[in-house]
């Protein structure tokens, strides 16, 4: 199986999406993962996305790029995150894509760090996330998109750390508009057996993000890439592998190496 590779737009050389896509193709990549900035910035790019799509640029997914998320403790920030996510979901469709990645939260609270106990109970946090995802899932279905829930490692999020954590939430939400994204860097910290975790999550996985064990590009750390690719093949995964990491050198040097490593 040959997996499709995408890179974040900021990683790709070129001034326009068309130039970035041409560069992506030249280094063995197949698409662009867009940066989902809030405050209406992403939505304001809809015309740019439509033009790029018409020119053949492939943009399957976007990643939320805000400082607040749907699992926020503050109801107003949570409400804003939900509304911004709805805009991202509507807009990714304009780009010809179908998925937007969001965590429960990023950098809001970690149970591994003082004061250890979040200001909201786990049960309430779960209820909040289920409620928010249900609302976003309904919107995603209405516009023909998917919300991808991303587990982050223990230092970055207080509740959804493993694929199993996310699957439990997604199954409770029960919306066809909500699926799972597996990030290899976070799995390297949180999963005791990564291939088993992938197989257990199975069809819930609709998107994969890439970072080696040290959060550099695949191949720059000691992550077991064959084990992960084999597991993805075993569940019939047909989605994208999207770079979400730092690079150890210029994109023109790094991305061809990643393509050679991951394309079978």
């Amino acid at each position: 199986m040959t997996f499709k590779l995408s890179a974040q737009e900021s990683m790709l050389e070129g001034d326009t999406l068309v130039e970035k896509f041409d560069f992506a193709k030249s280094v063995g990549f197949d698409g662009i993962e867009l940066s989902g900035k809030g405050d209406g910035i992403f939505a304001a790019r809809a015309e740019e996305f439509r033009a790029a799509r018409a020119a053949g640029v492939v943009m399957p997914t976007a990643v939320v790029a805000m400082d607040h998320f749907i699992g926020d403790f503050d109801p107003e920030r949570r409400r804003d995150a939900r509304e911004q996510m709805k805009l991202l979901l509507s807009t990714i469709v304009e780009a010809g894509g179908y998925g937007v990645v969001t965590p429960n939260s990023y950098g809001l609270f970690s149970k591994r760090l003082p004061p250890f106990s979040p200001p909201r109970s786990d049960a309430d946090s779960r209820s909040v996330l289920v409620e928010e995802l249900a609302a976003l899932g309904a919107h995603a279905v209405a516009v023909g998109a998917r919300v991808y829930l991303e587990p982050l490692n223990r230092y970055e999020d207080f509740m959804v750390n493993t694929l199993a954590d996310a699957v439990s939430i997604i199954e409770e939400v029960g919306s066809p508009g909500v699926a799972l994204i597996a990030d290899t860097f976070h799995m390297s910290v949180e999963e005791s057996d990564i291939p088993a975790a992938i197989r257990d999550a199975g069809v819930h996985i609709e998107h994969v993000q890439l970072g080696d064990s040290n959060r550099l590009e695949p191949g720059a750390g000691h992550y077991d890439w064959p084990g992960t690719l084999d597991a993805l093949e075993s569940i019939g995964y047909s989605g994208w592998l999207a770079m979400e990491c730092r690079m150890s050198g210029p994109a023109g040097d790094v991305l061809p190496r990643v393509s050679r490593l991951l394309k079978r």
Partner: protein
Amino acid sequence: MVMTTISISADLLPAGSLAKKWDLAHDWGCDALTLSSRDVAEVASTISLLREAVALGIPVSTIMVDVDLVVSLVDVDGPAQRRLVDLVREANDAGIAEIVVAPNSVAGDANRRSGSASTSQDRLTDALVLLVQRTTLRDCRLCLQAANRYISTVNTLADSAAMAAAVGLPLAVSANTFHMNMEEADPAKSLLECAGLLGHLHAVDSTGGVPGSGQVDWPLIGATLHAMSFRGSITIGGIPDSEPQSAIPAALNTLRRFT
């Protein structure tokens, strides 16, 4: 085969007296205990436990102290800081092999530590020099442990080795395999590159559990330690994901097979 001392953090053993903890650890095959002071409040109790261990003949290979405790030496000359110096002196006198200065990976504070003035490498260097000057270490080695990006500014073994060189004092390196999983591109190569400085290995698996519970390549770690003729000690750390009575002997077996 190079035999190394394998100790276990007393914190991981079921609650009870130090003697009972040691009986259990010894029955499971551990060679020694490791005692830890994670914060100011624990320094006095660690001194008491060390004295009790010495009196009862319980082997203690390693004392671990939190890096922020050491850094506080730079600014504060209060009772708690003087007790920390007392602890290191007593450990030295008791023949403890290593004092490991490590961020408390369970009780770390990323926001406070990451890039903050209180834990800049210059301040840590000053604190280590101060600690060595005040304690006159003999055979006991002071080891600095690197930790992951979320809780420390000293992330790799190379970072620790560079700081050891900067201090200009007999400072060694402690390698924590949980943090290495996140920070070292090639764990075996990193160990080999600091072979002369490596004084202690903190054996924790990739998910923060005891050895064998995650994805750390223990055969590779063991082969590397063997290749470099490692003669320091190993502390079993991490949080057991099952009852200690089954998890810790299994972790010990994992290490014994490869070290």
